[in-house]
């Protein structure tokens, strides 16, 4: 295929995005279990066939050479999906959820993909953002943009309580600290009546400068689901978080984070402050999780402790591993698969944790780099010596 199509052209990237968008629309549109299964199986076969003909290296080269256009195509793809389901709540809610989860996973990717700080409390930090929004939006008159910001700051601040034990322990032990925190968080919320206890709390819808995100837009006869508002907001957040993580990776800071993960002794011998970079990654990652959480709470209108279990944290971690540790594009794709598949395939629902566990084991055994393995750092896209 390389002989037919110039890998330097923008065509493979655009064609890939068009294909993915078309598939997403068909997939979200499918009602019967047979249709969903058929589409999923079809997608796997087509992807394997394309890979056989070298399409994925072609598309990767094309994306790398036209990163701006490629990112624009992704945004347009999301907008096309919104247009295709403009009046249906469920697909748009799912789309917004995927985008917010991408923000959380970008944070986790900073933490353990780069700095090597394993965090099994992703859902707890997401939950801190949710509860911050519930309390601040429900009981104060704080502008909602500040509420969202406060959600992120709160997650980062509470996360800093964990910094000392995380810095003082290595590998598995640091992971245990975060597991303990994740369980602690849920128990704390459940027994705390001021935060609604096990029943949870209502959260008012979001309002930005007079724009009520919970109001449906109507143009004449056409009524647009209010979830479209949240999709747009989540899309903007995901895009900014993506750029942030990308730039961080493509800088000396990204190099420091990688060095901290790979060899702490060598780091020390070359003046790299291990604690400083672990704290930076951990705090920034938790901030992103809290940010996404506060928007999620206002979108769903309700928070309850059973949405932030250890199992949910595991799902977040598995998204990063499945996508390819350290690759922001990988986790974007993995988040879409992991969140949408069980929603559409009802019979999977009960077995979803089992399914993820199996998938993660298979990936670690046969493709340790994930679906889209990370490449060597490219500081300036398109730069050649």
């Amino acid at each position: 295929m390389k002989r037919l199509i110039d890998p330097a052209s923008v065509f493979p990237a655009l064609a890939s995005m068009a294909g993915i968008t078309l598939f997403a629309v068909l997939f979200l549109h499918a009602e019967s279990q047979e249709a969903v299964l058929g589409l999923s199986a079809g997608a796997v076969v087509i992807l394997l066939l394309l890979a056989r003909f070298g399409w994925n290296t072609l598309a990767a080269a094309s994306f790398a050479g036209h990163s701006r256009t490629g990112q624009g195509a992704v945004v347009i793809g999301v907008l096309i999906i919104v247009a295709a389901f403009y009046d249906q709540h469920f697909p748009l809610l799912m789309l917004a959820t995927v985008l917010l989860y991408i923000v959380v996973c970008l944070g986790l990717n900073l933490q353990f993909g780069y700095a090597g700080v394993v965090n099994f409390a992703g859902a707890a930090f997401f939950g801190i953002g949710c509860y911050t929004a519930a309390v601040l939006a429900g009981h104060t008159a704080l502008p909602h943009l500040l509420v969202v910001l406060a959600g992120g700051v709160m997650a980062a601040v509470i996360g800093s309580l964990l910094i000392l034990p995380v810095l003082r322990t290595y590998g598995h032990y640091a992971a245990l600290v975060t597991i303990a925190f994740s369980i602690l968080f849920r128990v704390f919320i459940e027994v705390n009546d001021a935060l609604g206890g096990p029943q949870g709390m209502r959260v008012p819808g979001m309002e930005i400068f007079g724009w009520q995100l919970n109001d449906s837009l109507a143009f004449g006869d056409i009524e647009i689901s209010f979830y479209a508002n949240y999709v747009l907001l989540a899309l903007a957040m995901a895009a900014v978080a993506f750029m942030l993580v990308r730039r961080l990776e493509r800088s000396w800071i990204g190099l420091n984070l990688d060095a901290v993960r790979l060899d702490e002794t060598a780091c020390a011998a070359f003046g790299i402050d291990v604690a400083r970079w672990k704290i930076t990654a951990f705090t920034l990652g938790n901030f992103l999780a809290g940010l996404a959480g506060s928007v999620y709470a206002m979108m769903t209108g309700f928070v309850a402790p059973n949405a932030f279990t250890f199992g949910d944290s595991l799902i977040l971690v598995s998204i990063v591993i499945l996508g390819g540790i350290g690759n922001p594009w990988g986790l974007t794709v993995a988040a879409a698969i992991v969140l949408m598949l069980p929603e559409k395939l009802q019979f999977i629902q009960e077995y979803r944790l089992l399914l993820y566990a199996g998938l993660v084991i298979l990936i670690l055994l046969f493709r340790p780099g994930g679906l889209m393995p990370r490449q060597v750092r490219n500081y300036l896209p398109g730069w050649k010596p």
Partner: protein
Amino acid sequence: MSNTLLACDSLSMRFGGLVALNQLSLSVNAGEILGLIGPNGSGKTTFFNVITGIYQASEGRVDYQGHDLARMSAQEIYRAGVTRTFQRSRLCLPLSIFDNLMIGNHRRLDHGLWFNLIRRDAFRRQFEEQYAKARELVRTFSAPLAERLLEAAGSVNMIDRRRIEICRALISEPTLLLLDEPSAGMTHEETRELMDDILVVREHMPGLSIIIIEHEMNVIERITERCIVLNFGQKICEGPYAAVAADRQVQEAYLGTA
């Protein structure tokens, strides 16, 4: 004698009951190449680990340009201009060769959030400047390797990895370079080439002093100006290689008593 760059005064390092360095006193002159030899377990690598801050000395001082290295962290020691290579390679293999060199260049780079995230034009300038510098340094060791800087360090062979490690220690232009058995796992011919390259680099960096731990005695003979022999954490002999090799105590330490 010329002026002293580094002076250890009764330096000791104990691990529980094990005395790895026992009241060691020695000095390194500015600009010299000092060989550090001795049988396995005599405390050579421990000495490196103590003066680079990896271990905290149990007692004693290490005077270096007005600092006491025994009381400083590894990071501070690096910033004061002391760099090293490791006996067992400590490269970050999944990262590119250039990345590994830049780890060694830490003190010359700007690590601010604002600089790295927002001022991408300034970042680009610094990147290009550092890339040219890295390429020039690696070219002294190997021209083909200098064209492969953006490949993963894990994709090159052992000799090139050793070269990268030495370049990583050299790129920040240190005052004192510590080489921990650079010839390990290499043939005589490769070792000879590597030593020639190091001597070439040293000519470009006139102030550079080197301490080298080595078991290849012809390397020591050829490149060092002075040797210190350790045994059981103590200095047993000191002088030019020929004198040291002829010393009875040294022969006993290596071969055992007859």
